[in-house]
């Protein structure tokens, strides 16, 4: 439609349509579950006239608007920032956590990734440690409890030295940043056959292991966080690396290797 988008140099994502492109008719199979203790089931819905420029959640908004008009209860799903950073959204889309687009949260997935008359299966994260609350909403408070056991530096307000008192090599700061970008969405757990939280835990352990500020609590941190991860009922890591493929912010499995090193190191230097 616009001059800008029809420009020959404007790069189109493969499979995308132009702005004036056709709309989609879709069949949605969505997990409906009343509450944690009730059984759930997949229900089928039809939506029409879906613009390819909609986000996946905007497509669900259209469905919910339709359900309200029919006096049916809308589909419950978690979401908040809708710009890929808060980590609140996340569903299994055709068996893939956050859907088919790499390094993309559900809210940033756009309908141009789908084709007319596609059937899309939408389910909540499946993991023992993430019980379903309703429909597509799960309880991820286990992640908070893991952070509580050591995902921090013990520094009280008022006692910090000058920000430039301790130089940090740029490479370390950059690697720590890459690990620190974890949004805590749970896609790594949902995509893992063991429902392991290793990628999530390793991201925080790595961030703080790479920085001098994390040094004093390095041993205690990794031991307590790993123990809590086990206690919450997450499975073990068997290095299939599905978590990295599903991670919407590209957290690397090398962090899991670092987690293992940190854990081993802690075992060796403590009695």
């Amino acid at each position: 439609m616009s001059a800008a988008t029809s420009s020959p140099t404007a790069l189109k994502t493969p499979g995308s349509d132009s702005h004036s492109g056709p709309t989609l008719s879709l069949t949605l199979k969505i997990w409906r579950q009343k509450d944690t203790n009730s059984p759930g089931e997949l229900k089928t819905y039809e939506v029409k006239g879906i613009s390819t420029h909609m986000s996946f959640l905007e497509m669900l908004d259209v469905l919910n608007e339709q359900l309200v008009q029919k006096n049916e209860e809308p589909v419950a799903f978690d979401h908040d920032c809708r710009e890929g950073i808060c980590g609140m959204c996340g569903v299994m889309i055709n068996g893939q956590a956050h859907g088919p687009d790499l390094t993309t949260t559900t809210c940033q997935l756009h309908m141009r990734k789908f084709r007319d008359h596609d059937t899309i299966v939408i389910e909540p994260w499946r993991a023992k440690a993430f019980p379903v609350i309703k429909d597509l909403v799960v309880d991820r408070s286990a992640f908070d409890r893991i952070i509580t056991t050591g995902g921090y530096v013990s520094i009280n307000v008022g006692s910090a030295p000058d920000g430039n008192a301790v130089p940090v090599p740029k490479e370390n700061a950059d690697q720590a940043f890459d690990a620190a970008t974890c949004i805590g969405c749970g896609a790594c757990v949902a995509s893992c056959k063991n429902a392991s939280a290793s990628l999530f835990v390793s991201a925080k352990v790595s961030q703080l292991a790479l920085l001098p500020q994390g040094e004093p609590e390095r041993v205690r941190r990794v031991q307590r966080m790993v123990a809590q991860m086990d206690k919450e009922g997450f499975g073990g890591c068997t290095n299939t690396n599905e978590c990295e493929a599903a991670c919407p912010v590209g957290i690397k499995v090398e962090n899991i290797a670092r987690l293992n090193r940190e854990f081993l190191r802690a075992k060796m230097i403590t009695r």
Partner: protein
Amino acid sequence: MTADASTILKSRVPDGPLEQKWDNCKNHMKLVSPTNKRNFDIIVVGTGLAGAAAAASLGEMGFNVKSFCFQDSPRRAHSIAAQGGINAAKNYQNDGDSVYRLFYDTLKGGDYRSREANVYRLAQVSANIIDQCVAQGVPFAREYGGLLDNRTFGGALVSRTFYARGQTGQQLLLGAYSSLMRQVDNGRVKVFPRREMLDLVVVDGVARGIVCRNLVTGKYETYSAHCVLLATGGYGNAYYLATYAKGSNVTAAWRCYKRGAFFANPCYTQIHPTCIPVTGDYQSKLTLMSESLRNDGRVWVPLKQGDRRAPEQIPEAERDYYLERRYPTYANMVARDVASRAAKERCDSGFGVGDSGKAVYLDFSKAIARDGAETIRKKYGNLFDMYAKITAEDPYKSPMRIYPAIHYTMGGLWVDYELQSTIPGLFVLGEANFSDHGANRLGASALMQGLADGYFVAPYTVNNYLGAKKPPIVGTDHPEFLKALEETKARVGKLLAVKGTRSVDSYHRELGGILWDYCGMARNEAGLNAAIGKIQALRTDFWKNVRVMGTPENFNQSLEQAGRVADFLEFGELLALDALTRKESCGGHFREESQTKDNDTLRDDANYSHVSAWQFTGTPDGVQLNTPALHKEPLSFEVEKPTQRSYA
């Protein structure tokens, strides 16, 4: 409509020279002894930068803190989405920065409508914030020597902005969240996620607790404390399309307003110049592209009206870099309100681009040619990726299309110098209060203010309040708690009882449209009067025809949204009324009747150098009769005398 302001609105700014006020204040505060702190309960609502930082700091001091948020985890609060950076007067770049300069830039940026002493304190504590965050393990950008890097932001001629790629808010929030969770580990803080505050409980004129709804079970819960801290963010979602999170709302602040807290300057809204334009009616939110992009991106439109050629086909000589042309000193880095209005003016005059004509270009070709695509990727990679994901266009190859959108609200609950509202015992922090940004906020100042309030101001002033007042224990079995609980239940019940035909979302969209059209980037008397009428009619219709699905005692997102929209429908009218009453232009509040010959804001210091604070004057069950009462806090500037703001 007016009342004698001086007797009611005591700003409690301490005596002494500007640079000594905060120290004087701290030196004379009452303290709670270390062993006695555990006997005080504090409620903190909201877990963004201000709320998480305050809850963590008060926990570190030894108080019992209860921390509430509506999200599933404290880490989700929308501070997380701030991209560009945080200002601090460190002068690490040796470019002549100082506390005074940061203070001056912030005061000028706010168009002399903020409280001078608050702004100075903000600049003073800014340096401590960076130290605190570095010590928490926040991975700020660094130079090869290992020291902290800085970038430049709008409205400033120095590099004082600290950043973590384009995700500074995320890193600062996760830092504050980690401190919060450490206090959970230490047993000083208890977190209550998926709870929505639906009322404030006031006992004998003092804030003593809250009513909330457990969003999982749908059950109502009451909590009592010795004081309540509100850090519930801004009200920009009144406009529906905004860069806010979908859940951001005015409900907690509005409930406090209805219990007697004054609402200050609601018409001061910030419209951010660089957002991705609207593409369709289904649009659920707008996404910001960080202002930091203006360091390397150049804003332009075609010189010729209605030029539909692709940007690459428009030769250099036929482009109008209008910010560089009009503001040679600050060029692309002018303050946000100035850049937004200029974009609107170009588009309204027929020079806009894109299919709607409601966009301007933000072009990186010169920077990419100069520094290489790799350098640009390192600085802004995640922002370029986000743009490409949303628009399916590659900003490394063609310029971005941007348009202004609602991004921040400077107005909020009125607070004194100690961040206490007009209800004793109710403190308001961060974006939820009004005090530091005047009529326009400079970039990289929101993170600064949230953390300043949370780490360095409220912990002291709350300590002082508890030390001085020693409020007696009140339990949730007190009649005022039971009364507030019943009123909340009745209000929620009313929403479900309407059983109309129209969805909640459709009302919200319509309200947003009214506010954007009549109370957006340009406002005038006739339009604001029309807006007030339309909002009243829409509100009446809402209570007749809204359809809220489901039951109350259940996880029910429809019901959550309905309650928020019901409050926006009341609040929107106050926003328009405030805009109508302030007949001058200042910062982001542009009254068409009050402009310079160059279409710039024209302040009226003789008549409007004051804070407008509104008092609810309705019936006890919450119906506003006539208009709320307007109180004024006069603004005086001892050190920096107001001048006509110029970025030329």
